């Protein structure tokens, strides 16, 4: 193995690496926000809205991310919805992860005993106060492992983005591989990057889980 192909092209590789990390964090964090918003609406509504949000999460969890990206990037322009590759990738990751975050948050909301919310309402807390002070802190202990797991899964989903010509790490390294035929070196580096990233995220997640459940131990 000759790793000079990597050192020769390091600025390009660094750009790809930064873009991969940005899209991962950006897409997953906005997916988290959208998922929390939708779940909050869902548990506070009945009938059509409840089922609509249920359907949203079922559809975007049941269809491969690849198809969703193709729809956004290639299908969008036919109805005048033109996105740059990076924007389409970011939006795709956001929608895909939000559909899964909704389910996690909904399960979290349902785990908070109904009586507590009734008690809080009678004590004069408004909806927002109930959400922030009663529901979120309690459900967080239960859902943090699932949230961490989804962040881990999303790191791996970013490898797909190169397919809609986003110059992320996968695209950069694979591009170098196909021009120099140094596939072994470039793909080794790519696999190593993802493996290390995943171990780091998992470790950070474990620290977070301990912190979230700290008061339970005392």
């Amino acid at each position, binding site marked *: 193995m000759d790793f000079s192909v990597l050192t020769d092209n390091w600025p390009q590789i660094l750009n790809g690496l930064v873009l991969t990390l940005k899209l991962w964090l950006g897409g997953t964090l906005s997916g988290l926000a959208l998922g929390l918003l939708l779940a909050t609406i869902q548990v506070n509504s009945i009938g059509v809205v409840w089922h609509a949000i249920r359907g949203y999460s079922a559809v975007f969890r049941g269809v491969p991310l690849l*198809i969703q990206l193709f729809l956004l990037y290639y299908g969008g322009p036919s109805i005048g919805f033109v996105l740059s590759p990076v924007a389409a990738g970011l939006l795709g990751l956001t929608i895909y992860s939000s559909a899964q975050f909704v389910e996690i948050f909904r399960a979290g909301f349902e785990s908070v005993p109904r009586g507590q919310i009734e008690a809080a309402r009678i004590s004069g807390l408004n909806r927002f106060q109930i959400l922030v002070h009663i529901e979120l802190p309690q459900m967080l202990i239960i859902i943090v492992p699932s949230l961490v797991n989804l962040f881990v899964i999303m790191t791996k989903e970013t490898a797909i983005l190169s397919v809609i010509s986003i110059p992320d790490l996968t695209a950069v390294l694979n591009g170098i591989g196909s021009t120099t035929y140094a596939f072994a070196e470039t793909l080794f580096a790519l696999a190593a990057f993802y*493996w290390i990233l995943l171990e780091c995220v998992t470790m950070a997640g474990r620290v977070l889980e301990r912190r979230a459940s700290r008061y339970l131990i005392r």
Partner: protein
Amino acid sequence: MIDLFLTEALPVFVDGIQATLFYALGCLVVGFPIAVLICAMRMSTIGPLKALATVYISFLRGVPLMVQLLISFYCLPVLGVNVAPWAAALFTLAICTSAYMAEILRGGFLGIPYGQIEAAQISGLTRRQILLWIQVPQAVRLTLPALVNEAVAMVKASSLISVVGVLDLTRAAQNVASSTYQPLTFYTVAGALYLVITMSVATGGRWLERRMAAGRR
């Protein structure tokens, strides 16, 4: 529009659906025995075997399937390994899912109370009988929901083989979308078909869970 769909798209989509079902089902069938083996290695007390299984699971769960496919399709030929694309795709999917299934099964085996195994030993059952009649049935029942999830995930994950040029539902949609210039329509169709497949698998799984739960008293 309907004409176009019937003459151009339908035959391609039928091929695509068949291929996706073949790869998704095939990788589970090939991957399950590997998963059982890896799980047994991971739970064994022999150091090197355990270490090997741990690295195997950690690598395959730590590296995206996309990267694994790129390695299979670009790296292996450079190293002199040449296999047909369909076999490379199937094998890569199977290896990938085997790591996930091994971890799921390990959770199942650990969920069986140790007292049962002791009781079986005292009753005179051999190691093989205990594994076959006490441990495996319970481990599968305990982990069935997770295994069904994994099957659904593999239906979706198998879409990645289109990237390395293997025909499946996604590739079929790409072909039709580019030949008819109607990407929105045909990617929507593909998405709907994937949804039908994943929902059928999930529903079948729930039915199976109910059936197997019936044996529990």
